[in-house]
């Protein structure tokens, strides 16, 4: 139930940060309008509700927020919420594929490293873990684009779909999503590899594993039934938080790969000082984050009965 006060706190912070940053949106979008009079500008300010005192504007916004009314975009002249949710599917596709890649690559790497502890395989995986963590996503993205798209022409340079292709052309979509999803997943792969390596080593050293060995169980049974099951618990519980982190981290990747998702949309709205869109973006993202945290807490309880949600 902590979600409500948290969201309230987010609303105050969002509003304050967005409104107190320098620049007047009306000035910005009338900068190119020739001969516009001060009177016209005052009228526009009134139309957009920017002529009231700041606390009143906040209260107005809060009241409408409860009804899921985020106001109209200054730039698009459309409902900010309706606009924003149109960009969610693109970001979700990216985040979910990145998550899948993290698990599919990161988890086996960690386990292999643990079982080959001290060998060159372990060393290589650990180096990859450090590098994967250290490489900036935007840089790697640019390098991959130049190599795979511009030089080799195997993959497109960006975007979500080739111009002229059908919306449901899955193969074309895959070609577009491959590089951004990989770059987005890289940090996670490194994280999971490290986490799984530690957890697996930890579990392997515990009594019940030794007991299982002593019982004369086959190595395979010990590893898959006893050891890994326990080592994977933190992975399952991390899923909720990871998805939220991926959505947040997608901003940079979306910008590099021209991916039409919420990160890029919110970023551009922030530049244009499109208050309603920025506020809607931050609030919805915060709600998603809180929601996924709740899921995570519930998952903890399910996987490990010692923890429960009160």
């Amino acid at each position: 139930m902590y979600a409500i006060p948290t969201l309230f706190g987010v609303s105050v912070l969002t509003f304050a940060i967005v409104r107190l940053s320098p620049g007047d949106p009306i000035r910005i979008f009338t900068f190119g309008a020739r001969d516009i009079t001060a009177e016209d500008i005052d009228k526009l300010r009134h139309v957009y509700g920017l002529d009231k005192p700041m606390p009143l504007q906040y209260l107005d916004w809060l009241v409408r927020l409860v009804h899921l009314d985020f106001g109209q975009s200054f730039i698009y002249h459309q409902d900010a919420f309706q606009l924003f949710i149109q960009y969610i599917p693109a970001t979700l596709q990216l985040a979910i594929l990145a998550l899948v890649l993290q698990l599919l690559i990161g988890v086996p790497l960690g386990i292999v490293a643990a079982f080959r502890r001290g060998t060159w395989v372990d060393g290589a995986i650990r180096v990859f873990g450090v590098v994967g963590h250290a490489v900036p996503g935007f840089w790697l993205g640019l390098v991959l684009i130049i190599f795979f798209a511009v030089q080799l022409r195997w993959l497109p340079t960006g975007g979500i779909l080739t111009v002229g292709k059908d919306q449901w052309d899955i193969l074309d979509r895959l070609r577009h999503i491959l590089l951004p999803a990989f770059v987005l997943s890289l940090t996670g792969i490194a994280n999971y590899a490290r986490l799984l390596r530690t957890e697996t080593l930890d579990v392997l050293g515990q009594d019940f594993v030794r007991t299982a060995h002593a019982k004369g169980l086959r190595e395979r049974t010990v590893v898959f039934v006893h050891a890994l099951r326990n080592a994977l618990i933190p992975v399952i519980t991390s899923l909720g938080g990871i998805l939220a982190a991926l959505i947040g981290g997608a901003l940079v990747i979306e910008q590099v790969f021209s991916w039409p998702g919420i990160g890029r949309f919110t970023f551009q709205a922030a530049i244009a000082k499109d208050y309603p869109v920025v506020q809607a973006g931050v609030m919805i993202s915060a709600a998603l984050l809180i929601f996924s945290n709740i899921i995570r807490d519930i998952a903890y309880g399910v996987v490990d009965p010692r923890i429960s949600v009160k």
Partner: protein
Amino acid sequence: MAYPRTGRALIAVLAASMLVATACAGNTPTASNAPSGSAAASAAGTDKPQDGGRIISGSISDIATMQPVLVNDTASGEVTSLLYATLIDVDAKTGEPKPGMATFSAAADGLSYSFEIGANVNWSDGKPVIAQDVLTGIMATAKSAKTVRKSSYTTIKGFQDFVDGKADSITGVAIDSANPKKLTVTLTSVTCPALLNIANTYRILPTQVFGKYVQKANKPEDIDNAPENVNPTVSSGPFLFQEWRKGDQVILKKNPTYFRGAPHVDQYVFKVVANTTALTNGLKTGEITYSTIAAKDLADMQTVDTVKIQKYPQLGYTFIGWDTQSTNDGAALSDKRVRQALAYGVDMDAVIKAVVFGEAVAHVAHHVPVQWSYPTDTSSLNPYKYDKAKAQQLLTDAGWVKGADGILAKDGKKFTMTISTNSGNTERETLAQVAADQYKQLGIDAKAAPEAFQGLVTKLTTGDKTLDATIIGWSLGTEPDPYSIWHSSQIPDPAKNVTGFGFTYFKDADMDKAIEQARTPSNGDCSTAARKKNYDTFNKILNEQQPYNFGYVPNTLAAAQKTLQGWNPAPFSTLYNVQDWWVKQ
């Protein structure tokens, strides 16, 4: 924000992250300098145009709307200009008005204009484009609460009364009772920019679609939130709307009924990418058919043998604006001699090399060479050739003497100066740095200060007196009237709630008079010759007084696939002949 070809002059060039100079830009005499480009063009001359294929135009920002009344950015302007046609066009090379959907004539007293829409001009639903559609566009602008275009029509008789709800119709717009394609627009007073404001605009709307939003009982929201604003159903331009995939692409298909003939290509796709790097990558791989590129990417693009490049001076300039009433620096900038010294003291050719890789021409007045309003006799303008000795002499004359620390000082006050510009625009940040370095050599304690565009714009237009010098750019339109930048009434004054673009605080009675005479001549003479005479005076005063260091006119660098034929971007428009473009298979 540029709205191409609308006669909406004076458009501030936005931060690089938001700007795509797709339309109006260029130079009169020689459009194509790139050897590859001209070779391809001449080879194409012998080919027969092929139908089919698509054009993919690259942009770094998405459109916001397709309602001409609400358009306020370059991207939306480009797409709207493909969906709607104008009554009057301007020549793509010279900017002179010429017939579009309609022919036109001005009354002898300059108080009214008559238009006759061509008999063959129809909407895409088969209905003829009629005078009523012009009125619908004007009424929609009057009704809208969110448009920034009302000022285009304030000189039309009865417009304000309609806006204020005092009248049911606009008395100054008279539709011929015998011919529904003819109308006469009457003004309250002679105003030269009115012709282009009223007729060189895409705000000619299909009454069968938008008529229901502009009736007396309609509220502003009805037109501002009309579903057809984002899903236009009926068009008069070369293309029809098909689909808008937000943040990614806008797909247009050819309009078979376009009055200048159906386009050769089947589709025109407006493709949104993240930044200029993505643009150049897309051009290299062929994912983008044509786009403008940044100067920094030119050398790279020239190595791509599938791409041709055209360059021409922009319809705009990048400048350093001085606060001529600044008190921050011992009031140095209020002295004409100091401002002149700041012009002589910068090696603009070296700056152009450093900042835009040589892709610009030094500039010394307001109007740019491609405009008819630019002085024919350029000898009337001082070119301010780089002359450090002369700069130092002028500073000495003005009483500024170097102290022991090498910094100029006068009456115990040091000459300090901060050159602000919008952060994130690498070109302008470099310019600020290079200029500051050169001014330091004159003994001025100059430094560069990048600042967010949003804050900068607000300060400039509201009379915030904290800026000494600001680097920014103007994008000029088809109508050369400089009133909103240079008339003394446009100087911001917070005390009187006056805002405007006169952020140099410079005023000159003779200059005001010249601007007024070219805008609202007392003798009613709006001829180019008469206006040009006044603009000569105007430019000469600015050249002499130097309220700006007028900086440079950058080249527009346009790149296209060599397979794209008929593409010949010109100073005032890129898309003027889009129906003739075709893609070589």
